[in-house]
């Protein structure tokens, strides 16, 4: 390796294209003759469509065709299998029948010559319904019955809890959150010679291709899914939603390309959300703080279309030592679309409950909350007894505590002050899975000394382009400017989804392998007859810094080798496997310390500081990794204080479905963020020592805020978000 770029803050290789507008997103493609589709959405939350009156809309300017359940082509459902990589959360295909499962479900699709014409006509389509009553929220859903999805047990958690010396027993609730990436969902579809070519804003070109193959009964090779650039997805773009299928279907029906963009307000209904949860936590401990029982029973809202389980207790069975434990998950149906993973699904809301309860336990024990966590640290994964491949949680605690100044905290509630502001300090652990999945890649070396990497993965804005380029540059020993990264195309070698924080750990080993295979191929060519090192034993040749060398000081460039033989390139392919079955447990760990200020005179709540320490394996790029953690903390702060999709109980319709009223943090809310990346490689997981870093930063943030709020105000808020009215001192 001539130089090492891995780990350093290499600037994004796609930054220039994004900054100059050259980067093209799904809706930036306008194939010749393209028409525009716009949806008509159900205004009731449960029932049947009685009629759809298109008489006015049909005659409006530019209208090409209006589709609904009576005239929509029949599509096939996807088996929705994760292993087969055709997962979907909304099992039903659009316009399948006249049944309405949720408000905001598609009831018609207008296709017109322009976006404005399509929208104008869509407003004039009149649907009438036969409405049924339906559960509008989790509380109402519970009345309709609860279905247990799974449970994990160690020992007898109930009796251990009953006989515990110190106990916490509390229920925590979290609202629906809606994915609000900047780029809304979009599909541009065209059919050519029996092939379907789709530009889709997706976190998984392979999953999208496989799903469409099932929907349209095609061979996957007949479909191309492109996602050159994605304006993020936060999980909402992992699987396809009805609009994508519908757009492809009407493009085929009409024999012309069609584009669909999901309006922001419909991002709140038809493309998934983080479900509402109610989590009952019971912790039992000895007076010295040793946990003796952990019980985490959670229920989340799901739809009548599919059962989505939010794995709230996913981290709970592994984070702390306790002989007795029960983690269970259950669901109840609510008349909303199907939930889907949202950044840090499960632990994202689960650790709000567990880590709030740990704080309550520390108070009950009169113990420092950080000390309580240290005391219950476990060096093996208690869920299966395996040792952790690499777990530096205790170092995270130490380093972040020191940076934050935790030792100076006065544990007395309401004792810390800055002028009119009461100060609160809270801590909560973070945790996320570490895993890898199978991945293929191809590297092509060319006579001009450049290399192209092909892989059917995509960059949702996290920095995948950049770390692939870094990995290839380091492995081949050539300048990063000579690496072309070709991703976001389902026709490339099988790649991974951008989700679950496993993209990095899965993709990079395949890139390394493919680089080495391409180098081996060039070495082999170098020893061919008529080549610069003809007759050499390939074992004596070495590819280094972009050239092939022998032991005698001779070297040959790719041009020297390929051109005389009239060869275009040297190609290397590689397949890397999923997580090793080597007796280790894998995970990433960390901690968030949060300082808040609360002004009792004005009821204002502000986060002042966050110090976060994260153990997520080797850091591939200090800048992009740091952005991931900082961005995740921002989202965590949003979940803690602002984010909640509010539904009208009578209609089931979301009411704050826009950027003005669905609150996410703005710059003015941002505290100082101080992120410590431990950067300890996990070589059991892969040769780069890389895990993933996209989600862990979000976990536990809400609890750290809630714990800090308690420290300042004495109010324990167990229902997110923590808005100013919940902690307001009303006597003023």
């Amino acid at each position: 390796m001539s130089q090492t770029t891995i780990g350093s803050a290499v600037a994004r290789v796609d930054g220039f294209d994004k900054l100059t507008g050259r980067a093209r997103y799904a809706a930036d493609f306008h194939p010749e003759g393209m028409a525009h589709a716009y949806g008509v959405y159900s205004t009731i939350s449960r029932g049947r469509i009685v009629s759809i009156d298109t008489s006015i809309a049909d005659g409006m300017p530019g209208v090409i065709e209006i589709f609904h359940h009576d005239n929509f082509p029949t599509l096939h459902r996807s088996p929705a299998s994760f292993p087969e990589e055709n997962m979907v959360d909304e099992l039903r295909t659009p316009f399948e029948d006249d049944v309405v499962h949720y408000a905001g479900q598609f009831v018609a699709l207008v296709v017109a010559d322009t976006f404005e014409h399509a929208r104008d006509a869509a407003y004039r389509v009149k649907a009438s319904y036969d409405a049924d009553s339906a559960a509008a929220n989790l509380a109402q859903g519970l009345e309709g019955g609860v279905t247990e999805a799974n449970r994990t047990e160690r020992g007898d958690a109930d009796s251990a809890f009953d006989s515990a010396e110190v106990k916490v027993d509390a229920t925590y609730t979290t609202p629906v959150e809606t994915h609000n990436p900047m780029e809304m969902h979009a599909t541009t579809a065209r059919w050519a010679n029996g092939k379907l070519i789709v530009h889709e804003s997706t976190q998984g070109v392979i999953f999208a291709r496989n799903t469409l193959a099932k929907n349209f009964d095609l061979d996957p090779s007949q479909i191309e899914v492109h996602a050159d650039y994605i304006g993020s997805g936060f999980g909402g773009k992992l699987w396809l939603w009805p609009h994508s299928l519908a757009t492809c279907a009407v493009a085929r029906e009409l024999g012309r390309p069609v584009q669909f963009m999901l309006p922001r307000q419909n991002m709140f209904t038809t493309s998934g959300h983080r479900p509402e949860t109610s989590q009952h936590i019971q912790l039992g401990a000895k007076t010295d703080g040793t946990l003796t029982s952990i019980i985490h029973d959670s229920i989340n809202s799901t739809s009548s279309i599919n059962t989505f389980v939010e794995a709230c207790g996913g981290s709970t069975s592994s984070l702390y030592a306790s002989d007795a434990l029960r983690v269970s998950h259950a669901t109840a149906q609510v008349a909303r679309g199907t939930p889907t993973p949202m950044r840090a699904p499960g632990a994202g809301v689960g650790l709000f409950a567990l880590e709030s309860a740990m704080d309550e336990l520390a108070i009950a024990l009169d113990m420092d909350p950080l000390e309580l966590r240290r005391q219950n640290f476990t060096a093996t994964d208690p869920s299966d007894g395996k040792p952790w491949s690499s777990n530096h949680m205790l170092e995270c605690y130490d380093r972040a505590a020191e940076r934050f100044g935790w030792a100076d905290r006065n544990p007395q509630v309401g004792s810390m002050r800055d002028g009119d502001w009461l100060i609160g300090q809270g801590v909560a652990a973070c945790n996320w899975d570490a895993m890898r999945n199978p991945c293929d890649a191809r590297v092509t070396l060319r006579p001009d000394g450049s290399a192209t990497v092909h892989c059917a993965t995509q960059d949702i804005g996290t920095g995948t382009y950049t770390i692939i380029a870094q990995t290839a540059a380091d492995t081949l020993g050539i300048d990063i400017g000579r690496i072309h990264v070709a991703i976001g195309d389902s026709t490339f070698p099988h790649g991974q989804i951008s989700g679950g924080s496993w993209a990095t750990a899965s993709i990079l080993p395949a890139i390394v392998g493919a680089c080495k295979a391409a180098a081996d191929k060039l070495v082999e060519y170098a020893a061919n007859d008529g080549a610069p090192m003809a007759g050499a034993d390939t074992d004596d040749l070495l590819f280094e810094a972009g050239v092939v060398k022998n032991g005698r000081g001779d070297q040959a460039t790719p041009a020297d080798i390929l051109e005389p033989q009239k060869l275009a390139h040297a190609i290397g392919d590689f397949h890397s496997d999923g997580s090793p079955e080597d007796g280790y447990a894998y995970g990433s760990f960390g901690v968030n310390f949060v300082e808040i200020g609360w002004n009792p005179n004005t009821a204002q709540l502000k986060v002042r500081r966050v110090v976060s320490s994260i153990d997520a394996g080797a850091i591939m790029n200090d800048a992009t990794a740091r952005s991931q953690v900082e961005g995740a903390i921002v989202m965590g702060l949003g979940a803690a204080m602002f984010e909640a999709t509010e539904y009208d109980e009578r209609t089931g319709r979301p009411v704050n479905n826009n950027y003005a009223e669905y609150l996410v943090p703005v710059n003015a809310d941002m505290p100082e963020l101080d992120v410590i990346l431990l950067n300890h490689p996990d070589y059991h997981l892969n040769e780069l020592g890389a895990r993933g870093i996209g989600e862990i930063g979000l976990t536990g943030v809400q609890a750290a805020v809630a714990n800090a709020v308690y420290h300042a105000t004495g109010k324990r808020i167990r229902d997110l978000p923590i808005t100013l009215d919940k902690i307001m001192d009303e006597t003023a």
Partner: protein
Amino acid sequence: MRQFDYKRATDTDGAIQAHAGQAAAYLAGGTTLIDLVKLDVMQPERMVDVNRLALSNIEDADDGRLRIGATVRNTALAYDDRVKRDYTVLSEALLQGASRQLRNRATTAGNVMQRVRCSYFRDGISPCNKREPGTGCSAIEGVNREVFAVLGTSEHCIAVHPSDMCVAMAAIGATVEVQGPNGTREIAFGDFHKMPGNTPHIEHELAEDELITHVTLDAPIEDAGSTYVKLRDRSSYQFALASCAAIVALDGDVIREVRLALGGVGTKPWRCSQAEEQLVGAAANEENFAQAARLAMQDATPYKHNAYKIPLARKAITQALKDATARAGNGGSI
């Protein structure tokens, strides 16, 4: 979005003519209008663009007043030296409204005329007396935590008038100058916006085809201190949950003159005359501020999710009075 035709006016007479006899709307910054047209909630058949009218100046008027042209952008108004110096409360209110991009577009008249943020009004389908008179009010029994009022509501409508700028103007005192087919007239700012009563679709005093040409601020109160306190969930880019514009002038430790207006809690920019009366001649201290705050909110009606606004508004009032007093000249210290 329906088809509409578009006329760009170059003088006020032309604008009024182009507006007359049509289901027309004046188009200023478009930040309210275009949004609601896209949502199909406002359905003008013609838009009369007023951006080229010669109404973009801020001029000194007689009696020490300040005359603001209808198309002066919110940003320009907020950073005008005279406004910053003599009407701090207005500058602060403007700068806490919306976002910088919106303020760069939004105009003075457009801000006065902005529509409610009620989601049932904006969704185009829920029963809403403002959008479709007689259909009922979905908000009273609906989700009403944020942009819904506790003052000036009726059983027909509870939507807040969302402007921050107007709250400061209500406190300062102003005159709205309008021009219509029959000439010009003036409307006192306090009379301009209407409470919903049983006609929530009638929001203001402007007659058909009338154009706002200027808003003229009353002369500043000598030696007064002023401020705008806006309370909300996030620190920027959110409408007020409760806000207060306060102007205080002192005579020693005693309040000589005071103006108080509230945002986020009223169906119109809400002037608190009774509380003002009680404060004049009283000592400028926290006890009296709190007393005034209680008085200002004593007739408030809470709805399902917005009862917290009553104590929150009291906090805004007390804090604003404190801060304005601290800025007032000629006084003792508090």
